[in-house]
């Protein structure tokens, strides 16, 4: 049995179920407890688990991320919420220099089972500092795993897997899609980390994306279908490790690939995918891999500039027609 619930509630269920299951799991971050979460992801959790396990922090990302790392090294399983990943930049030292490297530099003496989670990506007219996309930054770092998913059912299953995982994990959500609803199964289930999902089967072109750009990709696929173009749409769900097998399999069928990625283009997720595909499916490609990224600029405030910056279905459709040599 499934019921339709919002992404925020699916994430809430994931944390709540795991905290009931394991006393060592706790949640800390800004506004997670008494305010019920800046985006209400942790609503009701303080009431159920108390202030020992649902902890409001001061605005001190570096400090509380580091406290999480130390707690994880000493046997706990912290969930550290960042109000957005933009603020997590202050904590990158702890994520990159410590969480990611604990196992290696201690040669296995200490592990760091921690989940850093929060929204990534632009969320309307929030201007330069509140609109960045962090999957490619974090995925560059060996030692970390990076999940980015807005499908409520999968996001729940992935977050539960992340909390149980003994490696440090960065989970990227979406401010704009916390209210996005989907069918979520009742009862206990886990979604595996590192496995992409084919959301829509097709034969003419593969469109791969993740996080809220999945909705852009699916909308483009709907439009393309009206023109008789059959697009296969793949949701990466996990950025690191990247499930290139699912991509290669799809490209061997469709012979064309468009990557839709809100990251900046330089050395972004799309660049890595393009490399993987030319390496492992070169002989199957009928056109160069094409990508639709955010613009190679900071994101300004004005609506016209946001529109120009962001990927959208029209840009995806244009890219698909390019790889199909259908543009006039």
């Amino acid at each position: 049995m499934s019921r339709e619930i919002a992404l925020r509630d699916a994430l809430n269920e994931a944390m709540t179920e795991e905290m009931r299951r394991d006393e060592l799991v706790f949640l800390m971050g800004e506004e997670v407890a008494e305010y019920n979460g800046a985006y209400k992801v942790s609503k009701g959790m303080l009431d159920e688990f108390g202030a020992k396990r649902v902890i409001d922090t001061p605005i001190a990302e570096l400090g509380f991320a580091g406290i999480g790392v130390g707690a994880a090294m000493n046997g706990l399983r912290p969930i550290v919420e960042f109000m957005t990943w933009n603020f997590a930049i202050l904590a990158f030292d702890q994520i990159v220099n410590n969480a990611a490297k604990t196992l290696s530099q201690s040669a296995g003496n200490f592990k760091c089972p921690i989940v850093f989670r929060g929204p990534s990506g632009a969320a309307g007219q929030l201007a330069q500092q509140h609109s960045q996309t962090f999957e490619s930054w974090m995925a560059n770092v060996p030692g970390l795993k990076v999940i980015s998913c807005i499908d409520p059912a999968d996001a729940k299953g992935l977050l539960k897997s992340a909390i149980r995982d003994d490696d440090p994990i960065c989970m990227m959500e979406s401010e704009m899609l916390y209210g996005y609803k989907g069918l979520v199964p009742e009862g206990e289930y886990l979604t595996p980390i590192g496995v992409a999902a084919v959301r829509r089967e097709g034969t003419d072109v593969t469109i791969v994306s993740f996080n809220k750009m999945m909705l852009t990709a699916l909308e483009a696929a709907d439009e393309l279908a009206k023109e008789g173009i059959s697009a296969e749409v793949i949701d990466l769900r996990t950025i690191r490790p990247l499930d290139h097998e699912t991509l290669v399999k799809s490209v061997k069928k469709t012979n064309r690939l468009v990557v839709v990625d809100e990251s900046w283009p330089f050395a972004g997720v799309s660049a890595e995918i393009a490399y993987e595909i030319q390496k492992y499916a070169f002989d199957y490609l009928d056109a160069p891999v094409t990508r639709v990224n955010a613009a190679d600029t900071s994101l300004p405030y004005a609506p016209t500039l946001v529109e120009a910056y962001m990927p959208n279905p029209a840009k995806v459709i244009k890219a698909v027609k390019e790889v199909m040599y259908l543009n006039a």
Partner: protein
Amino acid sequence: MDTVVEQKKKTTRSRKSSKPTYSKEMYLNWYEMMFRIRKFEERALLMYGQQKVRGFCHVYIGQEAVAAGIEAAITPEDAIVTAYRQHGTAIGRGLSTNACMAELFGKVTGAVKGKGGSMHFFSADHRYFGGNGIVGAQIPIGTGIGFAEKYKGTDKLCVTMFGDGAARQGALYESFNMAMNWKLPVLYICENNGYAMGTSVERTSNVTDLYKVGHAFDMPSEAIDGMSPESVYEGVKKAVEHIRSGKGPYFLEIRTYRYKGHSVSDPARYRTKEEVQEYKDRDPVKMTESKILKDKIATAEEIAAIKDMIKKEIDAAVKFAEESPYPDPADLFEDNYTQADYPFIVD
């Protein structure tokens, strides 16, 4: 909050000669630990000169009393985390000189299998959380280690050590605030050796009594002399009692000195010979030896036996390191993930 003990900037040089306050065992343990660290470090420098040890290498010579005093005042179940000048702290914790020397050599028999080198020894068995290379980053980590002890309801604490340079990192202020707010069992220790690399405390800090930083958080804070194990032991013991009683963290500024430069590549031209000599006159190894002999705590023969044992131990550690193999290249992929079948990119 406890009364903060104000101390003169320069701790007094003359120590009263009196009957020993502590047992013979305590003094001999201190002496042995400090002598072991001293000889280990001297040999590490020699091996660096012979290019057996590479990378960065920061030695603890001059600061030995800090490790000795702390260890006497805490238990093996308490945790320690520190910065990159850490050979002495690790040896104080009980890591073997074999494992430490082999680590400097980058050998697979090293404390962390040749993966960490001079800055990164770790040992879960010794509750030693490293050897951290980013200045001040271990301060929140130590706070989190203490957080976990409180969460689990133990009476253990985490000794969180850092240098005077780290005392001006934002991570310290964030950690002090949360540790006091949540009354975490953390003993913060600033080993103030006067210099952040080549820059003196006076040149980077408007307030040079670093322990006063704790006052902004109402954290009990004081400065103690770091050139004698007795002084360090007494200061740490008092702090530990406070923390174990559930009152939250404590901050000690331990005033010490490094005789060598910041790292092996630093000739330390930013300070005078007279200043270095002033501290060498109060050398913790020599002062402890002379106290032991003067107060007849132990005989010259007993001291000679310790020296002989340590020298043999360090010789053996070098031999062990020399003869141990380097890690296999395939070990590169070990311990990056706990997941056994993690799909690394291997183009």
